[in-house]
C-alpha cells in the first residue's frame, strides 16, 4: 500500500488540529473579504436594474447565498455527526458545535432578508408557504441542537445527543430544496435557472456565486476560530494545552 500524502487521522486529534486551525483561519478570512468586495461591487454596480422588480431584487445577492449556506452548514454538521457516531472521534462533536451558531445565523438571515423582500414584492412579510415554513423549521433545528447540547453537562454525551438531532433533522434539507417543486408555493422556483435575458442572468449569477463564496469562506474562518475556543474549553486539563506558547508567562 502506498504511503498517503497527508495522514488525515493525525488531524482528528484536537492537539494537532488546534494549531492547524490557527494557521488556516486568517487565509479563509482574507478570501471571505476579497470575495465579498467583488460580490458587493457586482451586486450594486455591475448588475443592472431588474425590469420587473426594479432595485428591490438586489436583496437576492444575500438572500440566496445565505439560504444556501444555512442548508449547506446543516449538511456539514450532519456529516461530522455521522463521523462522530461511526468513529467515536472527539473532534467531530467539536466541529458540529462550532458550526451550529453560524448555521443558525444564516438561517435567520435567510428568513430576515426574505421578509424584507416579500413585503414589497408579495405585500406580506411572512406567509405559511412550504419554502418559508421548512426554512423556519431549519432555524428551529439549529436552535434545538444548540439548546440540547448546552443542557447536557458531559460534552461527550452532549455530542451524541446533538449528533442524533442533526442526523434526523438533515431530512429537512431536501424538503426545503424541493419544496418549490413539490408544493404549489408563492416562493419563486430555483434561482440559478432563471429565464431572463442571457447577459442579465450571467451578471446576476456571478454576483450570487461570489457572495456565496464569501459566506462560505466566512463560515469556515469563523468555525475554525470557534472550534479553537471549544478545544481549549474542553481540553483545558491536557498537558499539550499547558505547553502551548500562548499559555506561557
Amino acid at each position, binding site marked *: 500500500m502506498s504511503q498517503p500524502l497527508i495522514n488525515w487521522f493525525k488531524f482528528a486529534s484536537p492537539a494537532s488540529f488546534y494549531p492547524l486551525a490557527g494557521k488556516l483561519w486568517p487565509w479563509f478570512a482574507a478570501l471571505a473579504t476579497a470575495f465579498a468586495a467583488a460580490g458587493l461591487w457586482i451586486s*450594486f*454596480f455591475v448588475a*443592472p*436594474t431588474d425590469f420587473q422588480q*426594479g*432595485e*428591490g431584487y*438586489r*436583496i437576492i445577492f*444575500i*438572500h440566496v447565498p*445565505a439560504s444556501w449556506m444555512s442548508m449547506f452548514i446543516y449538511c456539514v454538521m450532519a456529516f461530522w455527526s455521522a463521523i462522530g457516531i461511526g468513529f467515536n472521534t472527539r473532534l467531530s462533536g467539536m466541529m458540529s458545535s462550532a458550526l451550529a*451558531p*453560524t448555521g443558525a*445565523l444564516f438561517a*435567520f*438571515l435567510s428568513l*430576515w*432578508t426574505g421578509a*424584507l*423582500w416579500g*413585503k*414589497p414584492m408579495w405585500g406580506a412579510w411572512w406567509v405559511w408557504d412550504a419554502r418559508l415554513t421548512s426554512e423556519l423549521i431549519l432555524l428551529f433545528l439549529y436552535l434545538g441542537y444548540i439548546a440540547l447540547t448546552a443542557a447536557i453537562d458531559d460534552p461527550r454525551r452532549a455530542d451524541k445527543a446533538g449528533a442524533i438531532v442533526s442526523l434526523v433533522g438533515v431530512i429537512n434539507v431536501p424538503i426545503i430544496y424541493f419544496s418549490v417543486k413539490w408544493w404549489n408555493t408563492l416562493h419563486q422556483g430555483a434561482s440559478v435557472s432563471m429565464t431572463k435575458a442571457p447577459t442579465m442572468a450571467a451578471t446576476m449569477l456571478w454576483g450570487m456565486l461570489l457572495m456565496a463564496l464569501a459566506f462560505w469562506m*466566512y463560515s469556515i474562518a*469563523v468555525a475554525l*476560530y*470557534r472550534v*479553537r*475556543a471549544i478545544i*481549549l*474549553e474542553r481540553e*483545558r486539563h491536557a498537558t499539550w*494545552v*499547558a505547553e502551548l506558547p*500562548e*499559555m506561557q*508567562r
Partner: protein
Amino acid sequence: MNWGSASEFFAMGGYGFYVWGSFGVTAAALLIETLLVRKRFGDTRRLLRRELAADRESQD
C-alpha cells in the same frame, strides 16, 4: 454604472429600506458574530493562563 448620484444609490429606486435593511442587518450580524467568537476565545485563553500561572505558583 447604475447610479447618477449618491442619493440615488441610497434610495435604491424606492426600495432603500428593504435593500439596506437586508444588507445592513447581514453585515451587522456577521460583524457581531466575529466579535463574539473572538471574545469567547480570548476569555478562555485568559482564564486558562491564569489557572496555569496559579498552578506554577503553588508548585514553586
